[in-house]
């Protein structure tokens, strides 16, 4: 049986289910307790699980990640919330030098089952310091997994998988999607980390999209269908480990590649994907690939619409690739 739920509620359900399932899982972050989270992701968890397992912290992002890291070193499975992904920058040492490296640097002595949840993305007029998509920074760090779910179904299944994963997972939730509704199964289910999914099959062009751009790309596909261009939308879902197979298989079907993400285009995940296809299977490409991403400026407050990549940009990129 399927039922409808919102993206934010799906996150809440995943947390609640995993905490009920495993006593070692706890959540820690700013305003996660009594307030239920800045965006309500942890609503009612305090009442259900108590203050031992739902821990409000001071505004101390480095400490939040340090707490998670130390607790994981001792065998717990923390889920840390960083209120806005932009604030991950305050915890950079703890994430990059400590958490991500602990297993390798200590010769495999430790497993580091840590999830860091962080709302990313623009669209709420939150301004330059509350709207960024910084996934490429973290995808560049060996030891981290980076996940960016686009739908209520995927966010729940992936968060449950992330909590059960024995590695540090940076879980980037696009806050413009929090209110989005979608169908999810009634019972328990998981969505595997590292597996992309075809959200719309097509035969002319592959659009590899992440997070909110999955929906913009689906909209672009509807628009392009009217002019006879059949777009396949591949939702990456996980940034690292990258699902190379799914990308290559899709491009093998279509012969054309566009990558669409909300982060700035320059030096982004799109560049990695294009380079990967060009290096591994250049013969698959019937036309030069294209990238859709934000311009190389901070996220502006009032001019968000101008800034944000949208369906129209995907349409243009696809048309360019198809006519090349």
């Amino acid at each position, binding site marked *: 049986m399927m039922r409808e739920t919102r993206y934010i509620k799906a996150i809440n359900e995943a947390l609640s289910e995993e905490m009920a399932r495993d006593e070692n899982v706890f959540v820690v972050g700013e305003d996660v307790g009594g307030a239920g989270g800045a965006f309500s992701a942890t609503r009612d968890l305090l009442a259900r699980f108590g203050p031992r397992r739902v821990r409000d912290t001071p505004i101390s992002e480095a400490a939040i*990640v340090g707490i998670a890291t130390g607790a994981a070193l*001792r065998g717990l499975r923390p889920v840390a919330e960083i209120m806005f992904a932009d604030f991950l920058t305050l915890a950079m040492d703890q994430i990059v030098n400590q958490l991500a490296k602990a297993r390798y640097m200590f010769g495999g002595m430790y497993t*580091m089952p840590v999830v860091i949840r962080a709302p990313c993305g623009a669209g709420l007029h939150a301004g330059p310091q509350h709207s960024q998509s910084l996934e490429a920074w973290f995808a560049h760090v060996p030891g981290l997994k980076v996940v960016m779910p686009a739908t209520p179904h995927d966010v729940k299944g992936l968060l449950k998988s992330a909590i059960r994963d024995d590695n540090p997972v940076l879980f980037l939730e696009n806050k413009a999607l929090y209110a989005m509704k979608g169908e999810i199964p009634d019972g328990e289910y998981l969505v595997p980390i590292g597996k992309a999914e075809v959200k719309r099959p097509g035969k002319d062009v592959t659009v590899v999209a992440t997070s909110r751009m999955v929906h913009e790309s689906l909209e672009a596909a509807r628009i392009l269908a009217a002019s006879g261009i059949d777009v396949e939308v591949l939702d990456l879902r996980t940034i690292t480990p990258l699902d190379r197979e799914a990308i290559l298989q899709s491009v093998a079907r279509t012969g054309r590649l566009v990558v669409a993400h909300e982060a700035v285009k320059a030096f982004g995940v799109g560049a990695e994907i294009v380079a990967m296809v060009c290096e591994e299977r250049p013969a698959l490409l019937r036309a030069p690939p294209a990238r859709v991403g934000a311009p190389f400026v901070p996220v502006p407050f009032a001019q968000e619409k101008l800034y944000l990549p949208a369906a129209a940009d995907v349409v243009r990129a696809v048309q360019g690739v198809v006519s090349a």
Partner: protein
Amino acid sequence: MSETRNEQLAVLESMVRIRRVEERLAELFTQGNIPGFIHVSIGQEAVAAGVCSGLGPGDSVLTTHRGHGHAVAKGIELRRFMAEIYGRQNGFCKGRGGSMHVADRNVGVVGANGIVGGGLPIALGTALASQYRGEKTVTVCFFGDGASNEGTFHEALNIAALWSLPVVFCCENNSWAQFTPQSSYMKVTSVAQRAAGYGMPGTCVDGSDVTQVRAAAREAVERARSGGGPTLLECKVLRWQGHYVGDAQKYRAPDDVKEARTHDPIRSYAEVLGAAKVLEPGDLEKIEQCVKAEIDDAVAFAAASPMADPADLLTDVYA
């Protein structure tokens, strides 16, 4: 609390072991047997030996770039410790960490850290794990006076006090941060004073006097174990050597170095134990012999160990 003779001799032996291990490391490094760089704590041994003498294997220690002493005092096995610093396959970290990252979870050496102040937030987590599980175990986080100027110090001490975490923040204050004297980076002269700002007790002791260190550490550890929360324990020590082996200390007055070396925690404790007839003639020699044999064995093990396995380069990034 009266101590047994064995306990006192064990503390002396621990200090001697640290001293001789680091002297040997410096020698091996200078001869080119060890890659990278080495930071020694010679002259500061009373802190490691004194604090760790009150800990059990279930207690956790986090340390720094100057961390050999803490690891050795906590009981790390010298063979694999030495092999790690040699960068060999059967080092504790398969040669991936080296001197600044020695660790052995089985004896509670959670890990050393190359980032100044990087361990303080992690100590919150290891201490929280004890509290979370209702264990009576504690965490000791060692760091330098320089590290107390990192933001992580502030974040960590505030939370530790707020949550009454079973942790002891042990600041080994040698009054230098690399090449800069403390007066150039701190207005206050004592790190322990800062404890008041977090609502936790702060104590400052002569870190060259292992008896003082032990008494203060015992109190702090007992407080942590019994649910009384954290302590900031500052141990004032003197840095005999440069920041790293090979540092000629041109930035330091020669008299300052000379004066530092007059404070020898090992000699003074041996004198104390001698006067109390705890240490009898020949005892120190026996300790030295025993420690030397251990170190010889560890160095031989390390030198004979295989180089890091190329096939292992790509493993352990993920579980």
